[in-house]
């Protein structure tokens, strides 16, 4: 030992699926979880392990995808799964990957590449666990993926606002009232952009959306194949917290991208690429839809006035037209004053 450069274990040769017909039939996250009807995050779980395959260990931090999927004596997981604390997805991924690495190196475990995926919700990723995720992404010697499923609130505990809740949304901690129509005046954190910018040794960061299932699964595969710690941020429409008819889950996932609210991009070894519908919008091959089409299909924005919608639209426009890297890095060359409606 005592080598200067630490080696990483090889990864599984998970190739990109070329079209839906190439998607494997087998499920590793199956039926009988207790998520809401139309739960997009449950779909993310299913697609995530469908992409990673059987030789995978999943660690799940507290949140809907813990409480709803795994109720004692009952599970929906085919692959090994373990709970981790709310702020611990980074630590859980790293601890598991470190154990596999050292046990294989010392001959205490059969050598083989095993995928390690730790997931967290926006409470566990954008709020409490951010520091542990950030630390984990600075350890290139371990192979693991952290997947943040972002349903934009603490949906498991009763829909309380998180650092990832969009401006103005109705939550149990931000109810619109007589004195304050808009209780939640913070803008959503830009987690993927922040992590990509701040962790130069992390080889892969991407945003995904399960309404584009094959593209999403291929990004899971790339994140696992490339090695080292990697990060995916998935935006998940939530019928319960966003307040919409569950039949619209897929549509809202598409609308988030089509309105430019959720840009799809990946940063691979420092190279930024937009992909999918986002790329088409950026290249003016598709028109960016107005955010109104997205917002007014959700009960959490039902209290919005036209001014609120305009403000929201202006912030999204700004993201596309004024950010140093549109949709990714929110630096302006000229700082404009941010004026939310009264």
């Amino acid at each position: 030992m005592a080598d200067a450069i630490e080696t990483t274990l090889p990864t599984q040769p998970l190739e990109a699926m070329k079209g839906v017909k190439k998607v494997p039939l087998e499920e590793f996250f199956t039926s009988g979880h207790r998520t809401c009807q139309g739960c997009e995050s449950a779909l993310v779980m299913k697609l995530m392990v469908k992409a990673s395959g059987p030789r995978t260990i999943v660690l799940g931090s507290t949140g809907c995808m813990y409480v709803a999927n795994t109720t004692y004596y009952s599970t929906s997981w085919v692959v090994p799964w373990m709970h981790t604390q709310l702020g611990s997805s980074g630590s859980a991924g790293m601890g598991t990957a470190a154990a596999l690495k050292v046990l294989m190196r010392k001959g205490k475990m059969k050598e083989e590449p095993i995928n390690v995926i730790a997931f967290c919700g926006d409470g566990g990723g954008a709020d409490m666990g951010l520091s542990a995720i950030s630390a984990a992404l600075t350890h290139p010697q371990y192979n693991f993926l952290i997947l943040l499923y972002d349903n934009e609130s603490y949906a498991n505990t009763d829909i309380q606002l998180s650092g990832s809740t969009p401006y103005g949304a109705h939550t149990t901690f931000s109810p619109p009232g007589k004195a304050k129509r808009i209780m939640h005046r913070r803008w959503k954190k830009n987690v993927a952009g922040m992590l990509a910018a701040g962790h130069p040794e992390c080889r892969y960061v991407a945003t995904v959306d399960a309404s584009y299932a094959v593209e999403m699964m291929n990004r899971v595969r790339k994140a696992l194949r490339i090695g080292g710690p990697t990060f995916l941020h998935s935006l998940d429409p939530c019928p319960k917290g966003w307040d919409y008819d569950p039949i619209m889950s897929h549509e809202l996932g598409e609308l988030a991208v089509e309105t430019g609210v959720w840009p799809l991009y990946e940063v691979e070894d420092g190279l930024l690429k937009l992909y999918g519908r986002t790329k088409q919008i950026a290249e003016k091959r598709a028109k960016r839809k107005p955010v109104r089409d997205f917002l007014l299909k959700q009960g959490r924005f039902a209290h919005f006035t036209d001014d609120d919608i305009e403000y929201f639209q202006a912030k999204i426009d700004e993201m596309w037209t004024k950010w140093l890297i549109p949709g990714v890095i929110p630096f302006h060359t000229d700082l404009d004053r941010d004026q939310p409606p009264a």
Partner: protein
Amino acid sequence: MGRLFAVEIVYRGIFQKNLAKNISRGVVLAAHHGGKQGISFGRYGDSPERNGIPAKSFAVIGTDEETLQEGMAKYEPKEVDISIVVDDTLLKGVESWAWYGLQPINRLLRPGGTLIVTSMHGAGELIPMAHRKETPYQLAILKGTPSFSGLWVYKDDHTDVRVLGAIARVLPELFTIADVEKAILEEWSSPLKVTSARKAAERITTRVVSPGEGNPEKPFEFELPKWHEMREGIAIPSIARGAAMADPATQQTGGFRPARNPTFKKYTTRTMRPVVNFDTCVKCTLCWLQCPDSCFDVTPDALYDANMEACCGCGVCEAVCPVENCITMVNESAFADNASQWEAWKKDKPAYVAWLEEKIQHKPERSHGFRYRGQYEEQLPPMMEIAGGAGPEDESGKEG
């Protein structure tokens, strides 16, 4: 010792959470106007609620404080005087967050108690949906479209107060319609809602259900293991890997059927189910790929068969299907079993097509929550009309 009353509200998680809370609070407030003490609570184990998964709320009322204590610090009463079912598909039984196994809808109902259900169906259709009970009970039907909305925007179709009016009619010992009126004015300051409650009390229909009536099936149960029978380290076995399916006709194997959670099946979450026209299916995979519940079995002939023990009826498959009328969401009350549609189609295609044609007549009013701003305002007048709630003729006593 005085008398202890218990009222149970069985509802669809999230969709009817605010409705159930309104009813449960209303019961306690009305009883209070009748000189009784009560508490209102949701079943703690049902929380955090999920869209559609059956949940319960309770109102426990004592004729005096000491009697009330008998009903306090409990998750649910052992027996109830009234079960209120605010969505008729719940009659098939409930599998909730709070326990394992299927609980018949009338399980907690005391002998002679009343099951109040909001439905567009008559007793002849509703009674066979519920499991048989050893003792007779009363079925009360409150005509109306089930009231579904979401957490933030409430569809105020007066179902809450109409149920209160119905209770005053079937259990006047608990509270009277006059008590209900006072409670409504206290809680909502709405004379219109008072009118709806009065009309409901007048129009409710009742009928005794005898022990021989209802679904004869024994609901699936679960026995809790002893501590030394459980694996240490809070570990349980994962679900087994799935396997290829066999064609019932040709015995050809292929496709894939996932193994499924044997303990929690989720189908009582369903208010509607997908029926599939296998003849028009283009095998695009989208229903299977986008299903959050992994409910589709992939058949040897590469079709997708929604497994009715696993489907929770979200409707995403219908939404993503590119072929018109290939997947149709149909009211769950139109079905008596969870049999495989694909197997039926394989066995007898013309018979299946006929069955399909009949079933898709039962397309429900598709309103499982918020779809666009202004939707509830559009839906309210026809709903009130069907239900016989307060209408334009009652506008004179407009809300203040």
